[in-house]
C-alpha cells in the first residue's frame, strides 16, 4: 500500500500538493509547525495510489512516497 509521508517541519503550507493529488486526499492540517506554517497532511491514506505527484510538486521535498 503506497502512502505519502510528510515531513511536517519542512512543510511551508504552500498548498501546491493539494491541487495535484488526483485523489484530493491532501489537506492542510489544523495545527502549526514550529515555523508557524500549517503543514499539509493526508486525509485518507487508503485512497493513495502512490502516483507521487504530490511529492514531485512539493518545492520543499517535504513529502516522500513509501510502499
Amino acid at each position, binding site marked *: 500500500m503506497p502512502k505519502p509521508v510528510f515531513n511536517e*517541519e519542512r512543510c*511551508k*503550507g504552500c498548498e501546491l500538493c493539494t491541487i*495535484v493529488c488526483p485523489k484530493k486526499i491532501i489537506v492542510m492540517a489544523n495545527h502549526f509547525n514550529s515555523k508557524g506554517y500549517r503543514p499539509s497532511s493526508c486525509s485518507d491514506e487508503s485512497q493513495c495510489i502512490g502516483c*507521487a505527484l504530490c511529492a514531485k510538486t*512539493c*518545492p520543499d521535498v517535504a513529502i*516522500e512516497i513509501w*510502499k
Partner: protein
Amino acid sequence: MAERTFGRPEALLDVPTHYCPGCHHGIIHRLVAEVIDELKVIDRTIGVASVGCSALAYDYFNVDMVQAPHGRAPAVATGVKRVHPDGVVFTYQGDGDIAAIGTAEIVHAAARGERITTIFVNNAIYGMTGGQMAPTSLVNQVTTTSPYGRKQDSAGMPIRLSEMLATLDGAKYLARVAVNNPANMAKAKAAIKKAFEIQIAGLGFSMVEVLSTCPTNWGMSAIESGTWMEKNMMPYYPLGTFRSGEEVAK
C-alpha cells in the same frame, strides 16, 4: 517491507531552504539534483550560484559550488570549466541576474560555445531584492520599480533571452520549460537532462529557461501564482525548444 518510491535525490542536501512557501525555486532545485543523480556525475559536478533568491543554492546542492557575483555566473563557470574540462559545470541564475546585469556574460558564454549548462529561472521579477522590475517583467506588470505598470514606451518589451541566444552558433541546446504542473515538470526534467548531456558530450553551451513563480513579490498565493504564470507569462514566453542539439549532429 516498506520501500521508498520517491524521495530526496542524493544531489540535494537534506536541509530546509530559505525559499518562500510555494516558490518554484525548490522544485527546480530538485529536478537539477535528480538529473545529476541520474547522470551519475555528482562527483564531478561543480555548480555556480548567482545573486538572487538562489544565491544560497550552495547550501542546498550536494556538489562543489562557487557563489558568483551578480550576473557573472557564466564567466565564473567559464573559469571553472576551463580548469576542469571533465567537470560538469552548471550555473543557476535568475532573470534579473542573467538578462539584466549579466547580459554580456551569458551572450558570450553562449557565443563561445562554452561547455556549461545554465539553469535560468525566469520569474519575471527581482525576487531577492523585494520585487523590482526585471527585463523579463511583462508589459503593464506592476512591480516596486514600475508602480504604474511596466511601460513599453520607456522600458521596452520584455526580453526573450532564449530566442535571442538562439541566434548564436555556440548555443547548442536552448529550451523553455515550466514546472507549474506534473506534465510540465516531466518535460522540464527531460530538458535539463538533455542540456547536461549536451555539455557532457562536449558539444557546446546549453541552457534551460524555466518559467517560475514568485508568490511573495507577485503578491499572490502559490496556487494563484501558478495560474498567473499560465495566463500571463506563457503566452509571451512560449514553452519550446529553440535549439535542439540536433543542429550539432551534422
